[in-house]
Each structure stands twice: as structure tokens, then as C-alpha cells.
């Protein structure tokens, strides 16, 4: 598979075309906005937390296929997870995207999200894939400042 095919896999293109949990959540009790100042990508992540568990998660915004697919897959993975598990997943995904952890080492921890590992071959696109993750991290920490990839 070429690097480009690895980046734009079927699953990613599908999430881009029909993103999951792409909606405003009216009863969200946590919310954060994220910007990538480099390209103007913008995402809002909504969380509904109860007893330390993510009951519901959704997002809205504008961005490239990579940022949209990453956000969509993220929401699918996070639903039902504890805050601590979500935090752990954020760190594992971040390591995989930046190439800090090998794809194989990351697989055990990130499961289906391994499909995003092709991004680390495209340094200019790492921030696209990590934007939603930085944003959910900010939401979990209750930050009032918009998250930034910088």
C-alpha cells in the first residue's frame, strides 16, 4: 500500500463522508472548541459526563478529511469510557500520530484507531488528526480556553 493509500483508507474516507455523532449536543455538560491556527480547521466537541463516565460525545466543525474522520472515530471510541480511560486513549493516540510509539506498540492500546497511524508519515497532517483529541482533552479538563494544536 502506498503512503497515500495508507492515509486515505476506505474507513477514513467513509468517516469523512458520513461522520458519526456529528451534531450539537443540547444537554452537554462539557464542551470545548479547538482551532488549528495553521489552516483554520475548527471543531467543537460536546460531552455528557455522568459519574465519571462519558455517556455521550459528539462534534461539529469544519476541517479536512483527516480531521473529520479522526473526530468521528474518536467519538465512536469514547462513548461509554471512563474519564481516566479516555485520558489514557488520548495519550496513546497522540503517541501513535506523532510517531513516538510504533504502530504495532500502539495497536494494543488504540484498537481500531490504528487506521489513523498512516498520518505519522505526513508530518504536515499530524495536527489535523490530533485536533479533535486535543479538544476532547480540553473538554475533559474543563478548560474554558479554546484548544489549539500549537
Amino acid at each position, binding site marked *: 500500500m*502506498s*503512503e*497515500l493509500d495508507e*492515509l*486515505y483508507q476506505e474507513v477514513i*474516507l467513509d468517516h469523512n463522508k458520513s461522520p458519526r455523532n456529528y451534531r450539537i449536543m443540547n444537554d452537554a455538560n462539557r464542551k470545548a472548541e479547538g482551532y488549528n491556527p*495553521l*489552516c*483554520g*480547521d*475548527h471543531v467543537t466537541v460536546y460531552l455528557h459526563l455522568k459519574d465519571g463516565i462519558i455517556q455521550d460525545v459528539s462534534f461539529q466543525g*469544519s*476541517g*479536512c*478529511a*483527516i*480531521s*473529520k474522520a479522526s473526530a468521528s472515530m474518536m467519538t465512536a471510541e469514547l462513548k461509554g469510557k471512563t474519564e481516566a480511560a479516555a485520558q489514557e486513549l488520548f495519550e496513546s493516540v497522540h503517541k501513535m500520530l506523532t510517531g513516538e510509539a510504533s504502530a504495532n506498540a500502539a495497536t494494543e492500546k488504540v484498537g481500531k484507531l490504528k487506521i489513523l497511524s498512516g498520518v505519522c508519515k*505526513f508530518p*504536515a*497532517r499530524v495536527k*489535523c488528526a490530533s485536533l479533535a483529541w486535543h479538544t476532547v482533552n480540553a473538554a475533559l479538563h474543563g478548560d474554558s480556553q479554546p484548544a489549539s494544536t500549537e
Partner: protein
Amino acid sequence: MKAVSHLAESRAQSGGFDVMRLREDFPILKQKVHGKPLVYLDNGATSQKPQSVIDALNHYYTAENSNIHRGVHHLSERATAAYEAAREKIRRYINARSDREIIYVRGTTEGINLVAQSYGRSFLKSGDEIIVSAMEHHSNIVPWQILCEQVGAKLRVIPINHDGEIVMEEYHRLLTDRTKFVSMTHVSNALGTIVPVKEMVASAHARGVPVLLDGAQAVPHLRVDVQDLDCDFYAFSGHKMFGPTGVGVLYGRAELLEKMPPYQGGGDMISLVTFEKTHYNVLPYKFEAGTPHIAGGIGLGAAIDYLLALDWNALAAHEHRLLSYATDLLTDIDGVRIIGTAKEKAGVLSFVLDHVHAHDVGTILDQEGVAVRAGHHCAMPVMQRFGVPATTRASFAFYNTTEEIDVLAQAIHRVRKVFG
């Protein structure tokens, strides 16, 4: 052999502008990217450098490196002479009256900040208005916003129409007794629009309002004559006109520069320093604190020498042909919408592709060896005006060819294929 016939045609039509020979002057263009010949269409971000500019930098550091304006030794005299000779080349190139009006800066951005802080803070006050347009680069918006916060002035924005042209009636409506400054781009970096700045300067001057022109995108494509434009300030960058990064020019009318306080304090900008009082140096040195980018200035002089050796009528014809060829070819691709369709345009083709974000376009084009800019082009208000988050921008220089535009079009077809 479609490509060959295009080339033959372009030579015939542009009066013998031998682009293949000129490309030989730019060593970087010979390389391959991801196994494909580099197609460099990101000239709006920065242009490539001819060998003569690279040699000038090399020669300076190899044979002349020394600090200027202070050493009594041989090398310092040579460095000073070379640096000041470059200033004179710049003066002649833009037809300024005197080299006192040529201030070396880091680039267009610093030139605009200098005027906003030095002229603006001295002569603007609460209630005054500054006019910019809706197609400015952030570097011609933010310095004025900072100034507005400092002195309580207001920023007024001339709208643009759907082709990306200034709405002149609105400009004339915004020009009032409250207007104390106009700062306009000469050529839009995001849209390619050539703005009728001469006419706009005249309207501002009729009310006694000074005008700064952001020439960053104009100097690589147009011959600029500051006396003909009659502007008060003209800022541009070396690196977009085939010179080095980190050096640029602020032209300012001497009588205004004389009235303005220094922008930064330090060495070289003084004539006498005591703890009681400092006397500033004369123009242009008053605005040139600290050791400058000496090699950069000399390199910019070399870029001007290179540009002066070109046949500008043939160059303009060639660039015009590149733009119209690219516009036709891209318009024919399903789902492509061109952003910026002004009647007068220079070397920039911004577009969006249905259902595909500019970043994805940029990444796939890169895999085909095609370098473009994808994003908001430091002109977020322009993106907002056209209701798009980002565009893909192909920006041309005289060394580009119609064959390269064929490669661009084929690469866009590949994007369409990937995204089904």
C-alpha cells in the same frame, strides 16, 4: 504531443520568452519530489532563487563578511559599499527619488508594522479612521488593529465583490474627514486581484490622506514605480521576488519619514547618545537599528539585477498565458470552483473542489510532485467573504510552464479519484 505544442505556442505568443532556458538559472527546480519532477506552484508563499542570488550570498560570506557603517578596515568598507549599492539598486528598481527613502526591513510585515507604530502612533488619535480592504493579508490588518487599540482609532473595511474586486463606490463612501490613513494591498495574495491602487491613492490624496501599499505580491509580477503610483509608503519582501528571506523594503516619502520617530532603538540609528539625550541618525538609518541582514540586502540587489535582465513585456505575456491556460483547464474539471475572478489578475489561482478540503487536495498534489498552498493564506476574512474554510492556491512565477499546469490538472483528477 500536446505538451510540446503548448510550449512552442507559448514561445511564439510571448515573443520568444525562453522559459526552459530561464529554468536553468534556478537549481532547485531540477529536483524530484516523491519520485516526480518538482512542480513548484507556491510562489505566492515564496519564490525560488536564481543561482546568481545564491552566489551573491555565498560570495558575501566567503569574501566580504564584516559589519557595516562602523569598521575602518578594508572588509567593512567593502561590505558597506555592497550593502549600500544594493540599496541604490532597489531605489532605481522602484523609481524612488532618493535612497534616503529606502529602508531595509525584515519583510513586508515589518514594513507595515513600522508605519503603524511610528507614523500611526504619532499622528493618529481617538476617533480617527484607518481604511483597509476586505482582501488584506493578516499582516495588513493586525498591525492596524493593534494601533487602533493603542490610540482609539477605528478600522474601516472596503468590501469586495464576488469576483474579488474592490467596490470603489464603497471606498469613496468610506473616505471621510475622519479618515487619517489608507493601507491597501496592491495585489491580493489569496485572490490574485490587481487593485487599481493609483486611482485609490489619488482619491485619498484629494483628502490629504496618506496611503501605504502592500506590494508583497505585486513586485514579483509587475514593474512598480512609486512615483507614478504616488503612494506614501510601499512595503515588499525580498523572498517573494527571487531574493533571500529575512530582508524586505519599506519605501517612504522622505518628508513623512523625516517627521516620524524611530521604530526601534539601538546601534546604527543614532548620531549621538548620552544618558540625557540621544540624537537620531539621518534617513534611512534612523529606522535601521542594529546590525541588519547584510547578506540579504546584497542578495536582494542580485535578484534585482537578475530581474532587470529579463524582457518584462515577454514575461508579462508568459505569465498572462499561464494564468489563462490554468484557469481554462481547471474550470473544465468537474467540481472545481475558482475563487477570485477579477478582470485584472496576477499569477494566482485559488480554487475549491466540491466535497474535498484544501488540505487533502494539497497532500495528494504533493504526492504528484506539485507544491501548492492549502489553507486560509493568512487572509481569513477573504475565506469568510467567500464562505469557504480554505482554498487550494496555485501561484505562478515566470519560470513555470504550461506543462506544469497540465501536471497540476492531472493531479486534481487524481484527488477526485481518491475521494470518489
